[in-house]
């Protein structure tokens, strides 16, 4: 079983606010799911290569240049921002 402290630590890493009640709930639920994963412990897979994608991917690069057609989209994107100032997103102070 994972500890309440671990649940709180994970929640902070995930930037999720959690109530004490939810910490208790997550503790039980996550422990049960993690227990299920114990199934994987029976496998010896030290020699196996990991797969991150089912198809072989290669890095694809493009020029770092704005698409002029996207200027209109910029307006729409800024309209969705909770707080905006002169075309920039305004956020609360960090410290």
């Amino acid at each position: 079983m994972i500890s309440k402290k671990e649940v709180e630590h994970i929640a902070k890493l995930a930037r999720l606010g959690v109530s004490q009640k939810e910490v208790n709930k997550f503790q039980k639920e996550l422990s049960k799911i993690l227990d299920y994963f114990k199934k994987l412990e029976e496998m010896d897979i030290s020699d196996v290569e990991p797969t991150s994608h089912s198809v072989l991917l290669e890095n694809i690069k493009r020029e770092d240049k704005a698409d002029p057609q996207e200027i209109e989209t910029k307006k729409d994107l800024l309209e969705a921002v909770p707080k905006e100032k002169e075309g920039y997103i305004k956020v609360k102070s960090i410290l």
Partner: protein
Amino acid sequence: MEFYELTIAEAHEKLVKKEISSFDLTKAFLRRIEELNESFFSYLTVTSNLALSQAKKVDDLISRGEKIDILAGIPLAIKDNILVKGEKCTAASKILEDYIAPYDATAVKKIKEKGSVILGKTNLDEFAMGSSTENSAFGATKNPRDISRVPGGSSGGSAAAVAANMCCYALGSDTGGSIRQPASFCGVVGLKPTYGAVSRYGLMAMASSLDQIGPITKTVEDAKIVFEVISGKDPLDSTSIEFQQIVARPVSDLIIGIPKEYFIKGTDPEVEKIIRASIKKLESLNIKIEEISLPHTEYALSCYYIVMPSEVSANLARYDGIKYGYSVVRQKREGTKDLLDVYLRSREEGLGEEVRRRIMLGTYALSAGYYEAYYLKAQKVRTLIKQDFEKAFKKVDLILTPVSPAPAFKIGEKITDPLTMYLSDIFTIAPNLAGLPAISIPAGKVGELPVGLQVVGKPFSENTILEFGQFFEKNIKVF
């Protein structure tokens, strides 16, 4: 026959012959939605104005005697995690309740270019996380075959809309079965294409190495029509692939594999009976059937429920109360101290239970000290699962399995126990992990409840799957 019962192919023929107009066809669906949506809750948003204006354009083309594309003037529904420019796109989440899509998803752009008529956006489990559509922040969708049951998920709104004739066809997305399982529960056809066959641009990312957009339709022929339009390489999705379809062999030459690991205890005996009967019928039609083994099947669920939440935890970091969507900043509430506080509280108030659970699980699996035990291990298991299929496909052309171990379950039956809910994906997740195309086709019924057959193929063998699907539909009469 009512207009709203037509398949894409049938409706197209009537449009071309001027037996109906797209405007009347669209109106018929909008009336139907008005009548039924309150009971089934398939649609979150109905885009009547957009639909009727698109319909009129196609009618103009027809009246001028111009040739129209097969999808032109045909009304469809789109899962509400796929962007349609200028319309709301909520992902069934409170955090995007008022979000307006600033651009079209590539799949949407492609069907729009063909003159499609968009009726609205359909319900889903929040951010496509769930197997029942009960995780929607706005209410559960009901199964049109039995209103006390779930339509499956996460594309439950799309599957229910097709099954209840509230659209001619629909688009869904599939990460671990989210097109196939609801298609099976609602008695319609659902295709998850090969990973990379359809652009994911404009699909809200859940687990990027697994997600695919695909069609939910009344017939296999319709699935083929839609797949051909939405697939192809897209410069806006670097994981999309320029591909050549493997040439479909005649069905009579195919060798069909039956993996013994998919016929296990825990499957509803009635479901197994239907799938076994289908296989027998195929044999009686001289289709070659061979038992095969996919030995790592029992590890697929654990592998999936590590890989998927890990990707989820990274992808959903963007819903942070800063750039769009629900934000405590907008609430102008007292006591929001600093940036961290905005993150914590916006995500606490805006994201639902299952989404938060998966973010927690994924963050845990990726965190220092656990990465090797969980994420890295799961990626290695993924390699073995992929190799299982590669070996099997050296011997057989297609693999048949049930879609889900049981037919549609009751609303509320599994929602309180996440792990039991996860188990309903047990037969559909392996093809996602291996990136393979797979379809769900109606194979029979338990009482009134439909049961689907899953057909899995090699990468980019959709043609073979679809050809076989049409053969199955025609020859294996089940309803």
